[in-house]
């Protein structure tokens, strides 16, 4: 075995550093899914009648939908009746009003993750809406944002306080029956984030949510909705990490973004859920539907993601460019190692005139990781002069891993211009030797090469997040070249 192969293996064998469990008394329903459970969730959240009906409709649709099987991943069938669909930290009514009120144990959890809330609040000026299990337990900076008319709260809160906005936009980008997992989410979603940026307002800070799945066997069904009114701007950060568990945990989130005329939404994700062990045991199933509607003229929606976790990822953050001159972007770094499987990519749907989209996807596979890039670029007949640039690069570390690229094009307007570039490279022993021969240590060489490979994506992330993402990648791949 060569020295670099050893280094790679050392890196990838590293245990999951965020693996620990917090004990909090939970308020949860027995496993199983039926209309009563949905009524329980809705009642628990004191929801209006229309929302209960909406959930039930989604559930009835879901019952008649087949589970998708076209994706390039393999897993044992999910027993949806063995999942508990609701878990909330106790004392739902007296939720903490400030970070000081947060359960010390939860704060300790964040401290272990190296993301202490109070430090973030003070140092980074980030407003944090922490989703712990299914209910938000911390919302900060709300007052400051409220001064400008910005709403940043949990979805449950939004349902109570801004029902007209929720009703107007919920399900408009991703319909209830869009796909199997979106329908499931629509039926049982428990919480998530809600953001509303009024006309002409530029959100003065990055909005951030840290997700954390904590209850064993509890499916997580987050629902996030972000609305940017005319000429507004918001940057939203989503970062996640989960404690080590043996059971597979299903996560089926839905994220909807709406950008009106001249508005811009930037949505960044760093995802580090438990990937399972070297034998493929445990780990999160991450079946997420994310879509943005660039509804207005000159609007822009940009997705940036760094995905290192989960046993199985099924995720295609997409943009529908309905407004003329609207822009869609997708920048992604995905890492699969151990026995992780990822089928991920994007859809860029061009409807308006002069719409432009950019796709930059960087896939890194190590050990026995399997990765698929699946992307669709659709140019509708109405999309005069649409442009797309796609770049899909794969890097392989070792000989047991795999990378596959499935780009789909559907062009219905002859004025469209599309460019596609794809490369597959093996992180070279020669690249590593070159670094070594200049005195650079092997681990530093790997991180240098990988970070270089991902640079075009990292530079799209907000500063602090980029640093975090680089660190995460370094830790993840610390021992993975071959």
């Amino acid at each position, binding site marked *: 075995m060569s020295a670099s192969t050893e280094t790679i293996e050392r890196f990838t064998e590293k245990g999951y550093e965020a693996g620990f469990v917090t004990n909090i008394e939970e308020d949860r329903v027995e496993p199983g899914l039926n209309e009563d459970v949905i009524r329980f969730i809705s009642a628990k959240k004191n929801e209006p009648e229309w929302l209960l009906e909406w959930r039930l409709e989604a559930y009835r649709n879901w019952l008649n939908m087949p589970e998708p099987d076209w994706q390039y991943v393999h897993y044992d069938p999910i027993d949806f009746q063995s999942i508990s669909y609701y878990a909330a930290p106790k004392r739902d009514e007296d939720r903490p009003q400030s970070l000081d009120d947060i359960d010390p144990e939860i704060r300790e959890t964040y401290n272990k993750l190296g993301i202490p809330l109070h430090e973030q609040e003070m140092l980074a000026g980030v407003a944090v809406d922490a989703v712990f299990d299914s209910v938000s337990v911390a919302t900060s900076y709300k007052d400051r944002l409220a001064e400008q008319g910005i709403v940043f709260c949990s979805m449950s809160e939004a349902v109570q306080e801004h029902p007209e906005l929720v009703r107007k936009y919920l399900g408009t980008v991703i319909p209830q029956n869009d796909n199997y997992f979106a329908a499931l989410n629509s039926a049982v979603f428990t919480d998530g984030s809600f953001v509303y940026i009024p006309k002409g307002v530029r959100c003065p800070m990055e909005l951030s949510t840290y997700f954390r799945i904590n209850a064993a066997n509890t499916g997580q069904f987050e629902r996030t909705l972000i609305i940017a009114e005319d000429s507004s701007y918001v940057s939203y950060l989503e970062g996640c990490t989960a404690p080590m568990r043996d059971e597979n945990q299903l996560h089926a989130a839905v994220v909807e973004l709406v950008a009106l005329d001249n508005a811009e939404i930037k949505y960044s994700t760093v995802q580090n859920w438990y990937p399972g062990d070297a034998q493929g045991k445990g780990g999160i199933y991450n079946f997420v539907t994310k879509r943005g509607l660039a509804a207005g003229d000159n609007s822009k929606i940009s997705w940036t993601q760094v995905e290192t976790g989960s046993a199985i990822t099924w995720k295609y953050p997409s943009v529908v460019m309905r407004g003329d001159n609207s822009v869609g972007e997708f920048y992604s770094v995905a890492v699969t190692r151990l026995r992780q499987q990822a089928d991920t990519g994007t859809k860029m749907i061009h409807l308006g005139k002069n719409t432009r989209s950019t796709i930059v996807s960087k896939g890194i596979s190590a050990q026995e990781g399997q990765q698929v890039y699946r992307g669709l670029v659709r140019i509708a007949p109405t999309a005069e002069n649409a442009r797309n640039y796609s770049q899909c690069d794969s890097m392989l570390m070792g000989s047991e891993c795999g990378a596959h690229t499935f780009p789909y094009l559907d062009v219905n307007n002859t004025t469209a211009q599309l460019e596609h570039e794809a490369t597959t490279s093996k992180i070279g022993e020669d*690249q590593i030797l*070159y670094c*070594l*021969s200049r005195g*650079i240590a092997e681990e530093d060489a790997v991180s240098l090469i990988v970070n*270089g490979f991902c640079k*075009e994506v990292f530079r799209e992330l907000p500063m602090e997040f980029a640093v975090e993402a680089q660190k995460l990648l370094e830790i993840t791949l610390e021992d993975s070249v071959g």
Partner: protein
Amino acid sequence: MALLEIRNLHVNVEGAEILKGLDLTIEPGKVHAIMGPNGGGKSTLAKALVGDDAYEITQGEVLFNGQDLLEMDPEERAREGVFLGFQYPVEIPGVSNTYFLKAAVNAIRKHHGQDEIDAMEFLELVRERARRVKLDEGLLQRPVNEGFSGGEKKRNEIFHMSVLEPSLGILDETDSGLDIDALRTVSEGVNAMRADDRSFLVITHYQRLLDYIVPDVVHVLMDGRIVKTGGKELAHELERQGYEGFEDNAA
């Protein structure tokens, strides 16, 4: 004490023996040239000296400043002062040339118990050295070797060497692919670095390079061994006669 002392070095590549008992001693401050036909083992010697693990040492020893070089990891050899200018420098996309060199300089400094180099000081250093080898300053911020022409890549190797200031510079066919102007600049870069405490091992096919980098000693490497050693005039002799006639010595 010799800077480099190679005794009875045997090296296998993919099971085949390429170096078959090579002896070579380089004194401080000297420039040695190694010439010889393709497949004779020139590049194998270079790769074995920097510690490429595709090259398996089966016998022999190598002392560098009196220390066992073969016991050291590749990065340690570099930090101790061994530099290889690659025949085919690789590209490292997304990693700027300057950033890369800074990582190298600091790794070497750390090894010698020194603090990290000051950012401004480093910037001045790379600019000065880039000028010395006439490396386009634009290439400092570009990713390492990415999109560089063949000549630029070779020039970049000499540039790296002049920043890292090794005590032994091994140049593996640095002249191949260079036009005459580039050859002259690269040679000037090397000559400017010649010093009493620095030696060079110049591997080349052509005598032409040795008109610019004038060697103290010339060796002929054939079939895994040094078959002849002489002064700079040996290079001219080889240019006229070719390698025929040396074969008997090698057998």
